[in-house]
């Protein structure tokens, strides 16, 4: 079977890998290059820490397990690190953290309370804030180096015969026998199946192909898809795991800069003008980071980048054919880093065998059928720990 995968981000690369390993003839198309969109600007924390929807919780939990499995079999430099995660609460956030830990424990999610002395060797190079009143440890969580994950998935896909070609897809059309994909340079490719995995451009590309994949695409100030990330150029900063503090979240860089985020500042970020060094936002982030450093006299250099999330309209994954007998499979999700290995395998299985996968059933694009976009509930902006 010939399959065209549109989008070489982490999801597209993962689907392409699973398909090519299953022996399918795969052409992966991307407008720019592998991992050039949202996959390059992400906090990349593998978790199912704050997913109230039970189906979505289970999908993310399985996603974490799939990373363990993939890390054992995928060649290349290590891309996945099961570092665990630590969350520090102060008096204000403690009730919220307690409630979440209890909820997660009831679900069987690995979570435990630790003392400062127990947390110190896990977190390594930062100071636990003095006003910390509770520390939760989530040993099954971890993080990904997104560039390597995309590269390793892609190299393995190519090893099994997949081809990535640079080209901008204008539209996809389903025919009775074949689907065809038209590129900006007027090239037309045909295939038995097309997987539309164009990240935050999926909604637009689907619309041009007559398919409804409702996503949040507003990029104006205050939009929930805006996520500011800081890349800390400070080699002395060595952190041992993903850390959430009341004012700053941190993720190890694994050879690249440590990544930080401050969710409460996102509403003030204008994505068309990322905060410059010395701006109010940049200063706030630097101050919050400095407060965590063993030597507060040091001021690390932070490179700020605005990430735009791929976010389906109801916040949950979209995976499936928009209609019976359709040849174009739609795949869009927030949390692509946690979910990519699992979604790659499940989506490829559905395409190859035609058998519906249990975990994906709650996430079909048909759930939006007949709904006007204005009727969809607004997705709240992530502000609290783990909502990002």
């Amino acid at each position, binding site marked *: 079977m010939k399959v065209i995968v549109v989008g070489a981000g982490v999801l597209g690369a993962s689907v392409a890998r699973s398909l090519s390993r299953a022996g399918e003839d795969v052409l992966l198309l991307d407008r720019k290059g592998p991992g050039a969109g949202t996959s390059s600007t992400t906090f990349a924390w593998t978790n199912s820490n704050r997913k109230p929807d039970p189906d979505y919780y289970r999908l993310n939990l399985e996603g974490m397990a799939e990373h363990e499995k993939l890390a054992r079999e995928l060649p290349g430099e290590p891309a996945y690190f099961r570092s665990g995660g630590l969350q520090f609460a102060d008096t204000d956030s403690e009730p919220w953290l307690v409630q979440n830990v209890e909820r997660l424990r009831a679900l069987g999610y690995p979570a435990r309370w630790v003392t400062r002395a127990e947390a110190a060797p896990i977190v390594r190079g930062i100071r636990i804030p003095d006003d910390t009143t509770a520390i939760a440890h989530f040993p099954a969580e971890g993080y990904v180096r997104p560039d390597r994950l995309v590269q390793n998935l892609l190299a393995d896909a190519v090893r099994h015969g997949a081809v*990535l070609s640079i080209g901008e897809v204008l539209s996809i059309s389903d025919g009775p026998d074949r689907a065809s994909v038209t590129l900006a340079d007027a090239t037309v490719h045909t295939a038995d199946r097309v997987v539309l995995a164009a990240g935050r451009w999926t909604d637009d590309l689907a619309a041009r192909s007559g398919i409804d994949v409702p996503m949040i695409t507003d990029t104006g100030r205050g939009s929930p898809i805006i996520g500011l990330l800081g890349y800390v150029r400070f080699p002395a900063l060595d952190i041992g795991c993903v850390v959430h503090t009341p004012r700053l979240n941190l993720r190890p860089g694994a050879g690249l800069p440590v990544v930080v985020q401050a969710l409460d500042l996102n509403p003030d970020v204008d994505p068309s003008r990322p905060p410059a060094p010395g701006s109010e936002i940049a200063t706030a982030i630097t101050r919050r980071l400095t407060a965590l450093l063993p030597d507060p006299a040091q001021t690390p250099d932070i490179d700020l980048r605005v990430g735009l999330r791929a976010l389906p309209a109801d916040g949950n994954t979209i995976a499936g054919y928009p209609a019976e007998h359709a040849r174009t499979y739609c795949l869009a999700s927030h949390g692509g880093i946690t979910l990519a290995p699992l979604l790659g395998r499940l989506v490829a299985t559905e395409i190859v065998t035609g058998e519906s996968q249990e975990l994906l059933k709650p996430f079909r694009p048909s759930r939006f059928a007949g709904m006007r976009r204005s009727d969809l509930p607004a997705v709240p902006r992530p502000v609290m720990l783990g909502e990002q």
Partner: protein
Amino acid sequence: MPTLHEKIRRELEDRIHAGTLAPGAKLPTELELCEQYEVSRATAQRVLNDLADAGLAVRRRRQGTFVADVRQQINLLSYASPDTHVKGVPGRHEVLSARIVRAADAVLELPGAEDDTAVVELVRRKLDLHDQPRTIERHVVLFSAAPELLNEDLAELVSLSYLRDRGVSIDRIRVYLDPVVLDEHDAELLRSEAGTPTLRRRRELRAPDGTAIEIVTALIRPGAAEFFVEFPA
């Protein structure tokens, strides 16, 4: 539809590029063009002026219009030096294809690479200032050495400096000059004729452990360049 003067100009351009109108040859006069193509004097004049503006012809008062010598002068000694392509020659690159494929399926063989190793493959056409094709460049780079190469502006990319800036360790650069004969595909891209002999510059980059990091070829449009070496007398 090209206009009449464009059509005539294109015909003359093709003859100049094919070499049937050699550098220094006299082009038809305005009157001759008027008769031959049954066009107005203004149209004929426009054709010759356009050719002159494009640098393909030289108009000399009272003598006529002559084919300009547009051949690039290439010093083989500097051409074989690794940094030639870092400076580059004026003109733009047109990206013909950019892919990541198995080494076995790439347009060039990357020496020593296993068949199923992923490589980045980039094919570009270099155009001169008059938008005439000058060379076809083919790059095959080890994907693991430059996984984000395709995210670059591929029309501007200079691979050697890109790799150096990325900290890719390059120990050895070897340049070959291969005499080749154009196949139909390349002849069409270079607006030349299949079967015409030309030169191909081939450059290999190797890591300290001997692994080939990149192979690049530049196929030169026949007649577009003269090669020389020069020594102090």
